[in-house]
């Protein structure tokens, strides 16, 4: 396997006039991994993907796709990439089969037609239907087939399961995992956290044109602070607990103390051993809570959950 990563962005900047869409995106996606790209609307997900395909040109920074510069060698990049746009629109005066043939011809007919039919079959897509009669979900299936059918080395998918029912979403996850096990790299943007948890090996969260976190879904949860609730047999002074490294007291009422713990629990457990503990509960925020903190409140709230 070549040494270079599937995707690399260093300080990627994109300005639209006075609007700063990307403010220095740093990203590295390894070959053969499924990488989730999360962020709220307008965070810069689509802009980042479109820079990778030379549909728009960065205002600054560096971007490499499969070791190639998309601005210098766009054809070589696109020949190895399957792309699904976030807002998929297709020419309406064709059948599905004709549209897929057209996309295959744009690839110089280097498409396995049998595999194309199999993909359509997996997704329950009738290729004899006219595009203009397709529902949004079925159009999305056409988009997925055209992205996958050339067995590209890299899949850039902007909201791949948008408009699909839960059963079809499962089929798409399976197809992406299959593509990945055959050596392809999958880079997809999504709003759906369960989707990211289900298939992504690593995740980046983008907000206001910057990557604010990059880790595996499991690591993100690990990195989050625990919330600990302790009930004592009798009233206690919680101040020794607040002096333990990484522990802060959130509230104290009657016999109950609520704490926030960063890092290991060791210090807290040793401190609690000296007190008359009746009950102890510990919880971590869910991945969804972590993302929502990044999405909604900015760095300050995100800091509450992760360190």
């Amino acid at each position, binding site marked *: 396997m070549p040494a270079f990563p599937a995707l690399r962005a260093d300080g990627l900047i994109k300005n639209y*006039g006075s609007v700063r869409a990307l403010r220095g995106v740093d990203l590295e996606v390894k070959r053969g991994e499924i990488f989730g790209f999360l962020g709220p609307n307008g965070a810069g997900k*689509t802009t980042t993907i*479109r820079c990778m*395909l030379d*549909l*728009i*040109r960065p205002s600054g920074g560096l971007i490499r796709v499969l070791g190639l510069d998309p601005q210098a060698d*766009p*054809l070589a990049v*696109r*020949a190895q*990439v399957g*792309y699904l*746009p*976030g*807002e*998929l*629109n*297709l*020419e309406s*005066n*064709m059948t599905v089969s004709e549209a897929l043939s*057209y*996309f295959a*011809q*744009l*690839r*110089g007919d280097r498409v396995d037609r049998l595999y194309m039919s199999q993909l359509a079959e997996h997704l329950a897509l009738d290729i004899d239907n006219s595009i203009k009669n397709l529902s949004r979900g079925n159009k999305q299936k056409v*988009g997925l087939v*055209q992205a996958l059918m050339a067995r590209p080395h890299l899949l850039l998918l902007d909201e791949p399961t948008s408009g699909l029912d839960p059963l079809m979403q499962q089929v798409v996850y399976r197809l992406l995992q299959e593509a990945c096990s055959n050596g392809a790299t999958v880079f997809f943007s999504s709003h759906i956290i369960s989707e990211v948890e289900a298939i992504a090996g690593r995740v980046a969260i983008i907000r206001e044109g910057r990557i604010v976190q990059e880790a595996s879904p499991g690591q993100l949860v690990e990195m989050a602070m625990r919330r600990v609730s302790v009930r004592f047999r009798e009233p206690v002074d919680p101040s020794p607990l607040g002096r333990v490294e990484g522990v802060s007291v959130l509230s104290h009422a009657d016999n109950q103390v609520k704490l926030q713990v960063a890092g290991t629990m060791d210090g807290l457990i040793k401190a609690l051993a000296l007190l008359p503990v009746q009950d102890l509960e510990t919880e971590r925020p869910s991945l969804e809570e972590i993302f929502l903190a990044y999405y909604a409140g900015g760095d300050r709230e995100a800091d509450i959950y992760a360190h």
Partner: protein
Amino acid sequence: MRTEFRHTLLRRLRGQIVGWSIGLVLYSLMLVAIFPTVSQMEDLERFLAAYPEEMLGFFEMLTEIHTPVGYLDTYFFNYMPLIIGIFVVGIGTKLLVADEERGVLDLILAHPVSRTGLYLGRVLAFIAAIGVILMVCWLSWTVPARQAGMDLSWLAFLRPFIPLFVLLLCFGALGLVLSLVLPAARLASMVTGALLVANYLLRGLANLDDRLATMIQYTPMHYYQGATAVDGLNWGWLAALGLVTTVLIVAGWVLFQRREIRVGGEHSWSLTDVFRLLRRS
């Protein structure tokens, strides 16, 4: 490039080529059928003398209406830059930008097709579409011509279609360039269409007012021969029109190379954009 050429010609423009061809064939056949009646009109000179002088000036060859060349010019080649021009301007302005506004271009350009290949494929299909329509028109004049008493060879019939073809290409290319400069294809269609009509009127009015005669020299229609090309082509005029068309097509290519492809929808200009453009110019 070949895929885009074929797809544009046979998919995107097919309906319009067929529709316009049918309409123009019927119109041409009707004109050919009427020619014997017009050429044998009695008291034609008295009839023409009753026309206002301005009308005779505007339609230069109206006084020759009883001859094949005069008839062709007055009833076909005089109007056709305007009539087929509407089709050509519509296609030219939508050739690239309409797909961008519909959000289709994004996915096409994500495939291994170069911008140059896509541009050339579509422009060549556009040229071929105009060529097919004019070819069909030419056949519908030249095949029944002898039966109608129009004693012109097939080559003589073909000649005036050549400057018409180049003039139409010129306005189509102008529409294409304007679509890449202005914020929306609709606006580009409106502006190019207005320029086409203005140029047509100016050409007619320049025959009536000497002050306009200088101005018309700087417009494409001045170099359009009309049916007088039956007797021979003005190669200098053709080359001038061809050169302007080529420059416009190259300008369109440069603009498309540099273009940031939008996800979809029409662009709009804010006052800041307008001031920026004014400052640049």
